Structure formats: C-alpha cells, structure tokens
C-alpha cells in the first residue's frame, strides 16, 4: 500500500486541520453481522481526492459517516476537528452532494438553491444562490422547475446547492453519474479549480475511466476496507498497462490471428469456437493495429468485446499490483 504524502503534510498544518481536514481513526461500521466499513484510517486534506471502488464496496457508507448521517460503530471521525455525528453545525464548513436523485422537483432550480442558502442563514441568500448557479452554469435553466431537468442538470443543481455556502469541504457521491462526457469534463475542471483554492474535495466513483483525467489522490475501497491509496498518475499507469483481453469475431479468425501475433502490442492469441481471444498490454496500439490489419487483409470485423472489463477485475488488479 502506498502512502499519501500530500494529505499527511496538510494534516500537520494546524490551521488547515481546523477547517478542512477529514480525519478517520480506525472507523468501522456494521449492520448486524454485515460489515460495511472495516477499520479505515485515513486523513483527507485540501486538494482533490477520489474515493474509488466497485459497487457495494462501502463508499456511500463512508461518505454518510463523514457527513454525520451515520454513527461509526467503532473508531473516531472528525471533519474540521469536530465529530460530524449528531452535529449539524458541521455543515457550516461541509457541503454534501448525495447520490440519490431526489430533489424537490416542484421547485425551480433558483428556488431550490435559494432555499438552501436560507437554511444556511447566509447574510445575502439571493446573491449566494446566483453565484453558485453561475458556477454550475445553470443560469439559463434556473427558472424552470427541477422536474423538467435532465439527469445531468439535476446533478449540477444539486452541486450548486451544496456550494451555496462556499464550504471548505465538499463531499460528492458519484457526481459523474448521468453526465455526458462534456459535462463530466466541466465538472472535473470545476472540482479541480476548487481544490486549487485550498478546499477539500472528496468524490466517489465506481468507474475508473470516469476519473482518468484527474490529478490528485485516490483512496480505493474494496469490501469495506481501504485497499490502496496513492496518486492518480500511478493508478492511471497501472490501468493503462494492465493486460486487456478482447474477444474478436471476424470473417477470417485464423488469418487475423496469425497477423496479430506478429504485433508487439499483442501478447497472446487463442482460437476459440466463439472467436479470437486476444491478450494485449497496450490497449491503444492494439485498437489501431486491429483496424489496419483488417483493412489490409480485407477481413470483415464483426465484433470486438472486452472480456475482462468487469470492475471487480480492474479493482482486484489494482489492489494486487
């Protein structure tokens, strides 16, 4: 397991710790006999951190613990130095974007964000709402009822509401769900920008590819345990260099197989009744060469299926690496 030097450093600066550090010491949470979060110790400081793991790994439980919507069964958890369980005051410095897409659909976007600003008792709720809506690029749609919004727009208005009091710490549960690639990039830029301004941004995701572009640190959760942590670049290298297996069906499997085995990007070819099983260490080079070989050999490409893309296999690869 690698370490997170940046986060550790931040945690040792006392004033930073005051407002924007999430600290977990041996935190566990179980439901009856089921352990959802198992003895996790981590410090998340200013900057952007991704909480990654397959579905059911315990990411949402962990975020709920941090936001004070669950009591730890064991261990200590503080946000900005104070415990979050039974302490609504923690939301003066904390913003939460929940995963569930349940907003007050009968309100307009502007109403929703303004109401949140008033619940925070901000001195100028209207101005704060306008600012948050502008940041999320929702000014054009702000006077429409949320019921008419697309999933990506709902996600953005939820983030605007969570940002309205300009929190030091922002927790986002699967924020990229339902966003198209352009919105996703925009959201990532925004989060990275906030992180650059000294805020602590923690988001969860179960799709590694989603966060490929990001910089910062990640915490990988598998089966309720902290399985790995480190920076994005290291994880990204592991991801791109890990072996990929594809099932390729063509009009001439044997011919293509012979050509493929001669390519450096291909590390193995097997002829199966279902098609060619191709193992590659360089996904990008493989996909370019496959197209060229088929064109040159006049081979009809029927299907290319990734056969080991299940998230569990990706995560278990990362964890074992």
């Amino acid at each position, binding site marked *: 397991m690698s370490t997170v030097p940046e986060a550790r450093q931040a945690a040792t600066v006392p004033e930073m710790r005051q407002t924007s550090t999430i600290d977990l010491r041996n935190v566990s949470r179980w*439901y009856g006999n*089921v352990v*959802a979060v198992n003895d996790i110790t981590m410090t998340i400081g200013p900057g952007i951190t991704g909480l990654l793991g397959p*579905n*059911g790994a*315990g*990411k*949402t*439980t*962990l975020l*709920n613990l941090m*936001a004070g*919507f*669950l*009591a730890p069964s064991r261990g200590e958890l503080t946000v900005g130095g104070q415990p979050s369980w*039974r302490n*609504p*005051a*923690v*939301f*003066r410095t904390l*913003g*939460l974007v*929940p995963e*569930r897409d*349940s*907003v*007050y659909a*009968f*309100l307009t976007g502007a109403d*929703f964000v303004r*109401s*949140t600003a*008033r*619940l*925070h*008792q901000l001195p100028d709720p209207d101005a704060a709402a306008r600012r948050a809506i502008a940041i999320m690029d929702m000014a054009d749609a702000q006077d429409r009822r949320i019921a008419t919004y697309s999933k990506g727009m709902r996600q953005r208005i939820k983030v605007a*509401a*969570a940002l309205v009091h300009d929190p030091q710490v922002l927790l986002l549960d699967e924020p990229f769900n339902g966003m198209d690639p352009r919105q996703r990039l925009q959201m990532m830029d925004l989060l990275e920008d906030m992180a650059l301004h000294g805020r602590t941004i923690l988001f969860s995701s179960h799709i590694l590819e989603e966060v490929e572009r990001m910089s910062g640190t990640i915490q990988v959760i598998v089966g*309720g345990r902290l399985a790995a942590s480190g920076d994005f670049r290291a994880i990204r290298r592991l991801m791109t260099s890990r072996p990929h297996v594809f099932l390729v069906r063509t009009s001439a499997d044997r011919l293509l197989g012979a050509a493929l085995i001669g390519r450096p990007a291909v590390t193995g070819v097997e002829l199966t009744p279902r098609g060619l099983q191709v193992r590659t260490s360089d996904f990008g080079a493989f996909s370019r060469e496959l197209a060229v070989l088929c064109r040159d050999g006049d081979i009809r490409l029927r299907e290319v299926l990734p056969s080991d893309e299940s998230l569990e296999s990706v995560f278990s690869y990362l964890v074992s690496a």
Partner: protein
Amino acid sequence: MRRMSGLLNPVVLRITLRATLGRKRALVFLLAPLVLVLITVALKVVARSPAWPAEFLGVFGFSVVLPLTALIIGTSVVGAEIDDGSIIHLLATPVNRLSVVLSKFAAAVLLTIAFGSVPLYLAAAIAKGPGDKLAVGLLAGAIVAAVAYNALFVMLSLLTTRAIAVGLLYLLVWEGLLGNLIGGVRVLSVGQYSLGVANSIARSPALNAHLTPATAIVMAVAVTVIALALAGRRLSMFALKGEAA
C-alpha cells in the same frame, strides 16, 4: 436570538406545504370535507331527531374525518421525504433538527385545520347556524385534534417506516375498540381530548365525551410536547443506509 427565531423555519414550512399539496394524494384531502358537507345537507333535510348534528358530526367528524386527515398529512410531511430521500437536502444544512420537526408539524396542523377542522365547522354551521355553540365547540375540539394527532403521527413517521399502518392500528384498535371497552384507555386517546374540549363549549351529551376539559387540555398538551420532543430527538439521529452490500 438565532436559536429563538430558528424554532419555526419559514423555508421548511413553505417547502413542506408545497410538497404536501403537490402530491397526488392531496386530492384525497378534499374528499372527506366534501362527504361531510353533503351528508350534513342531506341529514338536515331528512333527519328527525334534534340531536343529529352532534351525533353525526361527533362520530363521523371526530372518529373518521379528523383522525384520517391528520394521519395522511401527519405521516407524509416528514415520512414522504424520508422515503424519497429529499429530506437530506434539509438535513445537509446546519438547521436545528427540532426546528425541522416543528416546522413540518406546523405545516401538518395548518393543512389538517384547513381540510378537517374548518369543514367540520362549516358542516356544524350548516346544521345549526354559524354562531351556535355546537359549531364553535366542534371547531375548538377539531383544532385540538389537528394539533395532538399530527404530533403523534409526525413522531410515528420518524420511528417507523410503516407509520400509516401503525397509526391506523392506533385509531381502530386503541381509540375505536379499547376506548369503548376500557375507561382508562380514554385518558390516553387523542379523540377523547378533542371531544372533551368540544363538549366544554357545546355541552351536548350526544358528543359522547368522557373527559373533563381540564384533563383533556392537560393531556393533549402533554402528548403533543412529548411526541414532538421524541420526534426532534429521532431526527437528530437520522441515519442513511449505504449502498446495498
């Protein structure tokens, strides 16, 4: 100062009123008042016994219309938002949890008065005239019912996900069945508190009130305060389940 003004939160009150009236079941709210007024008009034409307004409005109003209206509204002001998860947008702010409960309770009381207590008064006014002591008494009792029932049902919706079923059991078995068989149960029955208050003004034996006004008021206040305190405590420990493991 902030804490004082925070006990009733206008934002929570406004959102709750809009959410409750915006749901499809809001149409049901109109049904009971309509039936109440129609039957009253019909009875006024055909009924012979001079005691019919107190008999009909006492029984139908206080053991059907008011408790059911309060049950539907009181269990939904918090319960529906817990079910669909939208309550998290209120709770992910520093707003005092007791003030969330009190504001939602206030919304429920207002709606129950509008869809239960006022129609009951209108029906009594149609039967006996707007200034009649039966009409005034029923209105006072119906307001007590709106307050105490909603405190109870708001609390239930925070304690159990089956608040409507538990509330119905309370109404049918406790108030309806045991309340008629065992005298002591009446002291712990919201229906009797409201009838007690109604009878203190209306003075009609046909209302079937068994408690003195003092007992009724003291008990109604006690039940309301205890239920709301428990509800506030419960909401401050509101927990979200994580993803299905």
